[in-house]
C-alpha cells in the first residue's frame, strides 16, 4: 500500500515544476526562517497565492518545503545573533549561540541544518508509514467521529498554546464564526452576507490570514527602533564534516526525532514543545563533560532534529484525518482545499498520486534542505543584514499583490486590511491568532458533520455516545476540557513562566 502511494506520487513528483518549486520552497523557507519576526507560517501565508496557481503536487511541494526550510532557518539567527528567527529555534539558543561564541558558528549552523534534515527525514518515514494506516482506520469514520475530531483539534490547540485558555477559546470561536459567513451548504440560505455578493462564498482564507498575521506583524515590526539597523554578521560556509559531527550523536538524533514526530502528530503540540522537550531529555541523559548550555553539539542536534521531525508528524493527522496539528499545517490543509482536495481517507482513496506526491516532496525537501542549507548559508547570513526598512514595505507589497491575485478582487484587499486591524487588536490584548485559523479551517468540517450526524441520528445527540470511536473522542474532549479548567485555575494562582511557556506564547504572535 505504501509503495503504491510512493510510486503513484513519483510520477507527478518527477516533473521539473514540482522539483523546482520544492527546491525554491526550501530556499524561501530558510530565508523567512532566518529573518526574525517571520518564520514558516508567515512564509506559507505570503506565498500561498503563488502556490495555488500551480499544479497540486508542485504547489504542495513549494509550501511544504517552506514549512521544512522555515522550521530550520530560525536556527541561523539564533546561533549568530542570539535572536531565534522563529520560536521553534528558541531552544537552539542554549547551545548554538555559545558554540558560535567559541568561534564555531559555521559548525553550529552546519550541525543545525544536518540535524534538521535528518530529523525531518525520520519524521518523513513515520509520515509515509503511519498516515495511510491512520487514513485506513479513519475510513470507517462517519459524521459523529469527524465532528468530535474537529472539536478535539480545536481544544488541543487551545490547551497547548501558551497563553490564556479563555482567550484561546475566544479566538477559536471567532474563527468558527468567521467560517459561517456566506452561503449555507445545507439550506442554501445566506448567512451574515449583509446583501453583499462578495460575501456569498464567505471570506477568502488567504485574505483573512494575510491580514491577521502578516499585516499585524508588520505593524508590530514598525514599533521597533532597529528599522535602519544592519547587523554585522559574517560566517563561513559550513563544511561537509558537520554532517559527520551530527551523525556522531545518532542516539540523540533518533531519540529527538522520535520525540518531535510524536509531538507533531498530536494536534496543538508543535515544534516548540518538541524542541524544548527533546533538549531537556538530551540534557538529562548527557554525560557531565558534554557541558550542555555552554556550546554542546548535542544540544543543537536535539532541538533541530526535534523541530523538523515535528513537520512530518504534524502532516500525519493533517493528511489522514483533515485535522491540522498547528497553524502552519492548517494553512497547508487550506491550500489543499483551495486546490480542490479534501484531506482525509477519501483523498487517500481517490487521489493516491497527490498523497504520494506529498510524501515525495516532503522527503525530497529534507534532502534539498541539507544541500541548500550547507551550500547557501552565506546567502542566508547576508539576508540577516538587510535592514527592516526594505523588508517591511516589500512584505506589505507581497501581501497586497498576493491577495489581489487570488480573484483580482479589491474586496479581498479590504478584508485583508480589516483583519489586519483585528489582528493588531488581538495581538495587543494577548489573544492568540493561531486558533482563529484553526477555527476557520475546522468550522465547516465541524458544522457540516454535526448537522449530518444529527440528520442520521434517531436519538439526537446520543449518536455521539452510541458509536464507540465517537464516544472515545467525546471522552478525550471532556478530558481536554477538564485540562483547560485546571490550567486556567493554575494560571490564575500565578507562578513563574518557564522558557517553554514564553516561547509558546511567541508562536502565537
Amino acid at each position: 500500500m505504501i509503495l503504491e502511494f510512493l510510486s503513484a506520487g513519483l510520477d507527478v513528483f518527477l516533473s521539473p515544476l514540482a522539483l523546482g518549486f520544492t527546491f525554491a520552497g526550501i530556499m524561501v523557507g530558510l530565508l523567512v526562517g532566518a529573518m526574525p519576526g517571520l518564520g514558516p507560517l508567515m512564509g506559507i501565508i505570503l506565498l500561498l497565492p503563488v502556490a495555488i496557481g500551480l499544479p497540486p503536487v508542485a504547489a504542495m511541494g513549494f509550501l511544504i518545503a517552506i514549512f521544512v526550510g522555515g522550521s530550520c532557518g530560525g536556527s541561523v539567527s539564533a546561533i549568530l545573533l542570539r535572536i531565534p528567527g522563529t520560536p521553534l529555534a528558541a531552544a537552539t539558543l542554549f547551545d548554538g549561540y555559545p558554540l558560535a561564541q567559541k568561534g564555531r558558528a559555521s559548525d553550529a549552523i552546519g550541525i543545525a541544518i544536518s540535524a534538521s534534515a535528518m530529523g525531518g527525514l525520520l519524521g518523513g518515514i513515520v509520515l509515509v508509514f503511519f498516515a495511510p494506516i491512520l487514513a485506513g482506520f479513519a475510513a470507517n469514520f462517519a459524521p459523529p467521529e469527524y465532528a468530535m475530531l474537529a472539536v478535539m483539534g480545536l481544544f488541543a490547540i487551545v490547551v497547548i498554546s501558551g497563553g490564556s485558555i479563555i482567550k484561546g477559546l475566544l479566538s477559536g470561536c471567532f474563527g468558527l464564526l468567521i467560517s459561517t459567513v456566506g452561503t449555507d451548504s445545507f439550506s442554501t440560505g445566506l448567512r451574515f452576507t449583509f446583501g453583499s455578493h462578495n460575501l456569498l462564498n464567505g471570506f477568502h482564507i488567504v485574505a483573512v490570514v494575510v491580514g491577521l498575521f502578516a499585516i499585524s506583524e508588520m505593524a508590530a515590526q514598525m514599533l521597533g527602533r532597529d528599522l535602519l539597523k544592519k547587523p554585522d554578521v559574517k560566517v563561513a560556509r559550513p563544511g561537509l564534516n558537520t554532517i559527520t559531527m551530527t551523525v556522531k550523536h545518532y542516539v540523540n538524533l533518533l531519540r529527538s526525532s522520535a520525540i518531535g514526530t510524536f509531538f507533531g502528530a498530536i494536534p496543538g503540540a508543535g515544534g516548540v514543545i518538541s524542541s524544548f522537550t527533546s533538549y531537556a531529555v538530551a540534557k538529562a541523559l548527557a554525560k557531565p563533560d558534554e557541558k550542555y548550555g555552554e556550546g554542546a553539539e548535542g544540544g543543537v542536534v536535539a532541538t533541530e532534529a526535534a523541530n523538523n521531525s515535528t513537520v512530518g508528524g504534524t502532516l500525519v493527522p493533517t493528511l489522514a484525518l483533515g485535522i491540522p496539528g498547528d497553524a502552519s499545517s492548517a494553512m497547508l490543509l487550506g491550500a489543499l482545499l483551495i486546490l480542490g482536495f479534501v484531506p482525509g481517507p477519501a483523498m487517500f482513496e481517490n487521489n493516491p498520486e497527490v498523497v504520494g506526491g506529498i510524501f515525495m516532496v516532503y522527503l525530497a525537501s529534507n534532502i534539498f534542505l541539507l544541500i541548500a542549507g550547507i551550500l547557501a548559508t552565506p546567502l542566508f547570513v547576508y539576508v540577516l543584514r538587510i535592514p527592516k526598512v526594505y523588508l517591511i514595505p516589500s512584505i506589505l507589497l507581497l501581501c497586497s499583490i498576493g491577495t489581489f491575485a487570488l480573484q483580482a478582487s479589491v474586496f479581498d484587499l479590504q478584508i485583508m486590511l480589516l483583519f489586519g486591524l483585528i489582528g493588531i487588536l488581538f495581538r495587543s490584548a494577548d489573544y492568540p491568532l493561531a486558533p482563529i485559523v484553526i477555527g476557520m479551517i475546522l468550522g465547516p468540517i465541524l458544522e457540516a458533520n454535526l448537522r449530518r450526524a444529527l440528520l442520521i441520528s434517531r436519538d439526537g445527540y446520543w449518536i455521539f455516545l452510541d458509536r464507540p470511536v465517537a464516544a472515545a473522542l467525546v471522552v478525550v474532549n471532556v478530558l481536554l476540557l477538564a485540562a483547560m479548567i485546571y490550567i486556567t485555575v493554575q494560571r490564575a494562582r500565578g507562578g513563574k513562566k518557564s522558557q517553554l511557556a514564553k516561547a509558546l506564547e511567541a508562536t502565537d504572535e
Partner: protein
Amino acid sequence: MASQRLLNFAAIGFLASVVLIVFWQIETDMKEQGIASGGPYDNAASFPRTIAILVAVLLVAQLITDFLKKRTDTRAEEDLRASDLWRGGLMLVVFAVYLTILTTAGYHLATAPMIFAIMWICGSRRYLVLAVSSVAIATAFAFFFEVFLNVVLPLGVWNIFIPW
C-alpha cells in the same frame, strides 16, 4: 498610551459586538429567509447561535478575570514611546490609502509612492536611495507576478502597464 487593561476591554468589546451582530442577523435576515429554525438540515442559524452563546459566556468569564486582576499599569513594562506607536499607525494609514487608490491610480502609479512613504516613516532620509529602491522594489514585484504568474495588476483609470 493605551494600557493593557484598556486593550483587553477593547478586544472584549469587539467580540461582544460580533455576538450582537450574530443574534441581530439571526433574528432579522435569517428569520426572513426561513433558515433560523427547524431541523438540522434547515436550521442554518443553529451552529452560529451556539458558538455566539459560547463566546458570550467566555466573554463574561474573561471580563470577570480582568476585573479580578490587580490594577497594574504595564506601560513601563512595554517601554513603548508615542513615536513608536505613531510610526505603526502612520504605516497603517499609508497602507490603507494605498489600497484605496490602487484601482483608481493603478499599481505602477500607486506602489512606488507607498514604498517611499513607508521607508520614510521607518526613518530613512536618503531621498535618492529611497526613490531608487522604491521604484526598484515595485518594478521587481510587478515583473515577477505579471511575467511568471500571469497576474494582471490593477491598471487604474489610465490603463498604465509595462509591456514586458
